[in-house]
């Protein structure tokens, strides 16, 4: 284990320190800026969140509960859980492998690889879905061949999983890479020199050092996987009870003017988002520097 310097994030210096008065703004300026920031965030971020729960409960608790008795709603929840339980582990294994190669070794083309990992962030979710339709659809490049062999990808589970994996591809890798780069490879080299095998080094040295960042990456990846809409909308075909994920079911109910049903389903996803953010804040507060501070986008 390292000497004990891994840990708490440095707190920003207190602006009210002895020389603080020349490096901060007058109190009234600070108050106005804080007020503008909070008002802006309240209007753009908080209000929509409150609206979800308000609209979901508008018809009362019984109506809210009843909206989950619909078999289509249950099928959508089950499908979303299935998709996330396949997509997240896939990206988890990739994220760990990519971070190990990038953080622990020097090789040519590394920065290109990092850029390519970020690529899915700059691709519209709709385009991500389209790409798989062009490959596996009825008129796609390999779609007809797959169909002859009885494999359906588009309008079925494999297509939804592929689209979800594409869209959530970078999340775990991005959480791990900067942190593992910061930590360097001295710990691992020490373990290897002392005779630990590669796996033993990874499980006993690397993993404990990055576990909280890994957990947050998995949570964020999971929230995005369960909530993905555009890419999945393109590949799913919207077959009720079969290829409808939770966000797609929200859309269908909303378009049918079943607002309580739509917002009830949406409230589950909003709750998931809140839990994700709460755990992230807790981890940052508790473990500070062992969560990567790089922008998670």
């Amino acid at each position, binding site marked *: 284990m390292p000497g004990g310097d891994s840990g708490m994030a440095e707190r920003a*210096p207190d602006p009210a320190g002895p020389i603080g008065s020349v490096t901060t*703004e007058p109190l009234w300026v*600070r108050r106005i800026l*804080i007020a503008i*920031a909070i008002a*802006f965030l309240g209007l753009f971020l908080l209000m929509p969140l409150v609206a979800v729960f308000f609209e979901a409960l508008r018809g009362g608790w019984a109506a809210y509960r009843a909206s989950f008795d619909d078999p289509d709603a249950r099928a959508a929840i089950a499908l979303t859980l299935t998709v996330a339980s396949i997509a997240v582990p896939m990206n988890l294994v990739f994220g760990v492998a990519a971070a*190990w190669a990038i953080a622990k070794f020097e090789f040519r083309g590394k920065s290109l690889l990092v850029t390519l990992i970020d690529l899915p962030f700059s691709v*519209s979710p*709709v385009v991500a879905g389209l790409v798989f339709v062009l490959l596996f659809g009825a008129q796609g*490049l390999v779609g007809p061949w797959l169909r002859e062999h009885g494999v359906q990808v588009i309008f079925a589970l494999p297509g939804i999983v592929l689209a979800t994996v594409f869209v959530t591809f970078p999340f775990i890798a991005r959480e791990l890479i900067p942190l593992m780069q910061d930590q360097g490879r001295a710990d691992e080299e020490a373990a290897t020199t002392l005779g630990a095998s590669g796996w033993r080094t990874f499980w006993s040295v690397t993993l404990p050092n990055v576990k909280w960042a890994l957990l947050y990456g998995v949570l964020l990846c999971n929230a995005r996987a369960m909530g993905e809409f555009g890419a999945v909308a393109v590949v799913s075909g919207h077959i009720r009870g079969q290829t409808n994920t939770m966000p797609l079911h929200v859309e269908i109910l909303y378009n049918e003017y079943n607002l309580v049903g739509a917002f009830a389903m949406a409230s589950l996803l909003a709750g998931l988002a809140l839990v994700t953010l709460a755990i992230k804040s807790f981890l940052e507060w508790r473990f500070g520097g062992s969560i990567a501070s790089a922008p998670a986008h």
Partner: protein
Amino acid sequence: MRAAGLSLKEPSALPGFGLSLGYALAYLSAIVLIPLAALIYRAAGIGLAGFADVLGDPRVLAALRTSFGIAFAAAVVASLFGLLVAWVLTRYRFPARRIVDAAVDLPFALPTAVAGIALAALYAPNGWIGSLLAPLGLRVAFTPLGIFVALVFVALPFAVRTVQPVIGEIDRELEEAAATLGATRAESVFKVVLPPLVPAVLTGFVLAFARSVGEYGSVIFVAGNLPFVSEIAPLLVVIKLEEYDYAGATAIATVMLGISFVGLFLINLLEAYARRRLGHG
């Protein structure tokens, strides 16, 4: 180590390089690179005349203009307020700062469709905000303004989170020096503190813009989706697909993808420039 002279990697005592890099590259190719190559292959099959056909359609042009124009405006607003929010969160201490800080990530975690129906409910003429704006003659939901609001929501965390760590790294001694040399606080903020933040703000802007151009879920519920008025390019891709017009969908998608890649390229240039000029990045 074997084949040191010709090796692509520097020697290392740690094992697992071949396995981890090999797996990462194979997976990256299977999930991202080959599918994107399929799109480019399809686009090449359309030919220039095909592209001109699709992009000459006034409805497609209007959708692209709507998407890029409103995404630009939303990214500008998100960048300005993002800078302010990042500044307030890094420099000032106030009650509930941690909760406010966590809330910035909400658009990352909240599914876009959920955000979309929530914004539609808020800004509809009978919604909480819509009913306040209606007497002023201002309609947000089901107009281009609705797209703008949704895109600001989506873009905001990119703007904040790109600038925030850079503000945290600013050397306070520079500000102290400026103050010692007689600068007023406003002078040191605008002449000493803000200029080094410009590359980060621009990077945040490009990220916010790229994300906004491609955004679909949160927009379609508040946009009204009127052709020539409030129809965005990603929606048109979906419409073309539903009409089995694969060439049309591919052409629009390729234009969007091309502009995203230019954006990525610009970010990399910016970051390289910032590293050279300012010694951090």
